């Protein structure tokens, strides 16, 4: 059974069909890329998976259970962690506190136990702290833990987003254009890091505009163009696919 199943998902906005009857699956332990030119429907499909946009028709199943129609926070607690395309860190909170939000989100927290400082609440706080620290060490952000997120160097902020998503203990990590705004050296560093996460056993869906990162590290690539899935194959095959080349060349140079 695949971990994530996208089953004939369509999303219309008025007359525009942003995602058109897309199906696909990701197995446990895979590192899959989702690419496509601007306006191909990547972000819409992403938002359908994470619960930000309900599909017009079709279903998304995670670990065999239907997740379409669930609120984003419920989908997160089922085990899908995400990052945002344009960094959405919490600027006026410290790096540590930013990441702790992911752990709190996964473990849940209530006002009454917090007020009474029950044993359960104290154990939970220790658990949140430990998970937060672990995510910070995994992303090498521990030395910056006390800084306000707004004071973090730009390149590190990407890792903060990933650390926050890791703190939700995801079974599937969905990265939305993580290489946006990074130079070549930083992109290569990020590629190594994503590979390490994958090697540690995490299932990853990488949504990218830029082909080079995806082709370099993914085992399989799904290609969207004008809302339709036009290819779903290993990178070497996709790169030779005339339909894919046309879709890309029709709008811009492949990177």
């Amino acid at each position: 059974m695949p971990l994530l199943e996208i089953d004939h998902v369509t999303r219309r906005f008025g007359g525009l069909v942003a995602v058109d009857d897309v199906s696909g699956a990701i197995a446990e332990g895979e590192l899959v890329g989702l690419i496509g030119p601007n306006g191909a429907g990547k972000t819409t499909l992403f938002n359908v998976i994470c619960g930000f946009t309900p599909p017009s028709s079709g279903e998304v199943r995670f670990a065999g259970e239907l997740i379409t129609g669930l609120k984003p926070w419920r989908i997160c607690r089922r085990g899908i962690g995400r990052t945002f395309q344009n960094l959405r860190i919490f600027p006026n909170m410290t790096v540590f506190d930013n990441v702790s939000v992911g752990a709190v989100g996964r473990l849940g927290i209530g006002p009454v136990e917090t007020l009474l400082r029950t044993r359960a609440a104290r154990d939970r706080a220790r658990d949140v702290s430990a998970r937060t620290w672990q995510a910070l060490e995994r992303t090498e952000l521990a030395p910056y833990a006390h800084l306000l997120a707004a004071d973090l160097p730009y390149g590190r902020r990407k890792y903060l987003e990933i650390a926050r998503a890791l703190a939700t203990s995801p079974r599937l990590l969905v990265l939305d254009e993580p290489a946006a705004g990074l130079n070549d050296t930083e992109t290569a560093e990020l590629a190594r890091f994503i590979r390490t996460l994958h090697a540690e056993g995490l299932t990853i869906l990488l949504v990218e505009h830029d082909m080079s990162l995806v082709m370099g590290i993914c085992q399989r690539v799904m290609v969207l163009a004008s809302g339709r899935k036009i290819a779903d194959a290993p990178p070497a095959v996709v790169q030779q696919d005339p339909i894919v080349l046309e879709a890309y060349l029709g709008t811009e140079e492949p990177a």
Partner: protein
Amino acid sequence: MRGALAPLAVAAALFAILPMGLSMAGSGYLFRLADVTLIFCILSLSMQLITGVAGLLTLGHAAFYGIGAYAAAILSTRLGFDAGLTIPAAGLVSALFGVLIALPTMRLVSIYFAVATLGLGEMIYVTLLNWVSFTRGPLGIGDIPPLRPFGFDLSSPLGSYFLLAALAALCLLVVHRIAHSYYGNALRALREDDQCADAMGLPVVRLKIEVFAIATFLAGIAGALWAHTTGYVNPADFRFAESILILAMVVVGGLGSIPGAIVGAALLILLPEALRAIGEVRILAVGLIMFLCILFLPKGLFGEVAALDLVRRQFGAAWRGGSAARPLGWR
């Protein structure tokens, strides 16, 4: 030990030094001033939770203060309830209204939420003013019995002060535990970016309703204390201008900062009194001081970053673990 020193200092100031000084001065006016300051500390602390910590700008906070005051006034004058019951009842009635108002409005985006609370606040004020058979309208309700909870006579200035100080300390403890915890981090995440908080697994609407319920409960308590210590309530005490005064306390003190809320409340209650000598110009002077505060200290007199750091270092609220050299997170 280090974690116990600062809370002890706060308790000593509140329960020993201040009441001793006030008793030696022997002036009813100073006691009254201390009581009003404590009541407004509770109000600014509660608004700080909603506006500073959870980031929901509310312009109707005085209405919940009013609901609490009227609940205490009506329960004690008409039904003869004891102050030991009217105070928690006032909190519950206010929180009930808070939840009823929060349910439909918490899905609104920031500025619309602010306007909705403004409108609802005015509706509650107009109701207090015009429902003459129930609230006696503009005449207000008088002869509210002083504080004699469960037979203990605390109606003397010193007795009332001690009760108010104890309840204010309790409210401070509630706000401290909520704000200075991982629950508080979840609330701050809502303030920073509630869509993103949603994607991190936080039930955004539920958290907002919870924090609104807690804060309006505290505002209701403040209202009951006002009713019992003043002996008289009038709709004019709970107008929009009071909401703005409380908001000014929170902003001048520092949005998101718990000590800031106390500093702001103390400043904006005591400063106009201290400036009484200069006559009516004092309102202008207070306005000017507020203006300068915001201009030069936009983060407030006691900003959030400094406040969280203080609480972590001096109040033992931080997590200490891993290889972290500094206090981080919450205990």
